[in-house]
């Protein structure tokens, strides 16, 4: 476990050192970014709409009953911004994109493609890891912003249309505007960047260290997704503590 953490950190450092090659790799970055965003947006839209809706549905009637209907927009807004959008989208990315990265690199390892690169004096970190990591670092924050907006919309739809809540769109909107500030958005974005870094490194690490046949690829993918999710949840707590401390 400690060895794996050390190796993942070493991979991170190697990738950082290869960052000057990023300009040369921009076509690869754009390609991966497009694939990642394309694979995540629809699912992100469905998830976020329903998460926002459920939040309003669960909390709305209770708040209205206690005369706190003006809090609903704030509650949905803050929850989506600070916690639900970054965490849920990161888990989605770990499952869809992280697993795909591990499977692709793992199969490249098993079928000698990475050995071929090495014999051609092409290092796999700048060639394979750097573009994927950069792409996920760009894609996840974008998906999180999208998710926040869709989640707010889901919350608004339920708050307006549900008879047990029945607040106006203006009331929901003004609560949202008054309850959200820059730090809330910043928290979500910082989380999404850290999660993207972790998903990218963990999935590339497991892909590159795959040994054996197709079964080993499957095992690497499972390990990659499970470890990414554990990393997301542990670091989520750490970042939240940090922001509580700063605020």
């Amino acid at each position, binding site marked *: 476990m400690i060895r794996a953490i050390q190796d993942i950190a070493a991979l991170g450092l190697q990738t950082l050192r290869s960052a000057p090659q990023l300009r040369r790799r921009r076509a690869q970055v754009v390609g991966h970014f497009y694939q990642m965003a394309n694979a995540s947006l629809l699912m992100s839209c469905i998830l976020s709409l329903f998460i926002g809706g459920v939040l309003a549905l669960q909390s709305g009637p209770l708040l209205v009953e206690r005369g706190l209907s003006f809090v609903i927009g704030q509650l949905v807004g803050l929850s989506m911004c600070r916690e639900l959008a970054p965490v849920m989208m990161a888990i989605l990315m770990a499952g869809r994109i992280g697993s795909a990265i591990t499977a692709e690199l793992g199969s490249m390892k098993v079928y000698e493609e990475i*050995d071929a690169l090495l014999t051609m004096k092409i290092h796999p970190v700048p060639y394979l890891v750097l573009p994927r990591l950069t792409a996920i670092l760009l894609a996840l924050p974008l998906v999180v912003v999208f998710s926040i907006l869709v989640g707010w919309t889901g919350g608004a739809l339920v708050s307006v249309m549900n008879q047990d809540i029945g607040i106006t769109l203006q009331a929901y909107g003004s609560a949202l505007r008054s309850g959200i500030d820059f730090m809330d958005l910043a928290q979500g974005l910082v989380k999404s960047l850290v999660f993207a870094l972790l998903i990218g490194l963990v999935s590339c690490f497991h892909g590159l260290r795959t040994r054996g046949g197709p079964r080993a690829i499957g095992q690497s993918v499972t390990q990659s997704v499970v470890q990414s999710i554990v990393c997301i949840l542990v670091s989520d707590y750490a970042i939240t503590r940090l922001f509580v401390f700063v605020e």
Partner: protein
Amino acid sequence: MKPPPNKGVELQIHDLYRSFGHNSVLRGISLTIPAGCVFVIMGSSGSGKSVLLRHMVGLEAPDQGTILFDGVSILDAQAMAQIELAIVFQHGGLLHSLSVGENIGLYLTETLGLPPREVNDRVNQAIEQVGLSVTQDKHKLPADLSGGMKKRVAIARALAINPGILFYDEPTSELDPITAVTIGRQIRQLNQRHGTTSIVVTHDRDLAMGIGDQIAFMTQGTLSRPQSPAELSQTTELAVQDFLQAGTREDYQIDSNPS
């Protein structure tokens, strides 16, 4: 633009040992492969041929022993940068996300950083050298190619490097006999045309006897003295005789009266 011809490179191996856990795979391999020859390392499956090959190209580090290319140690990264070596992997090792042309030009673009026009010329030249079509095959993906074509593309990719020494790992595995002969002929042809040292690791004895200038037989991590195909066919070593003569009709007969 045609690349400058690359003369063959001599390879020397001294006392190479390698174990994986308690399994000793290479047991004191020593060998000199003269520049420009086609050298075949033949042996049965699991004898350590592919492990030896991975050490020769620097993909594995030995427990003990030295590997020298024209007197330069494989560990001397700076000096080794001057020696161009290439390998044709057993399954081709082609990058599946890249087209045939991109695969062949990968080294030229990524490592040498040549301008696109020169890369294109050298890629086209390599494609033609292995008997593929620039117009039909260059833009195909590896998934669209047959086993034989994949091997040819892998050879073309190796040729584009203009190597002084070229390694082939089981170049005819999974191929039908006719395609295998075509690939073997191509290996021989390229060696004659470019003077590149060619090292072929195979268990295909027809290929070994057909193309090898020298053949060394590998068994249980040790290598026999290199011999010409004519010498090898006269050998008195039992393991080599068994390997060369296995597969007659009698070998397939089932004993109907087991005692």
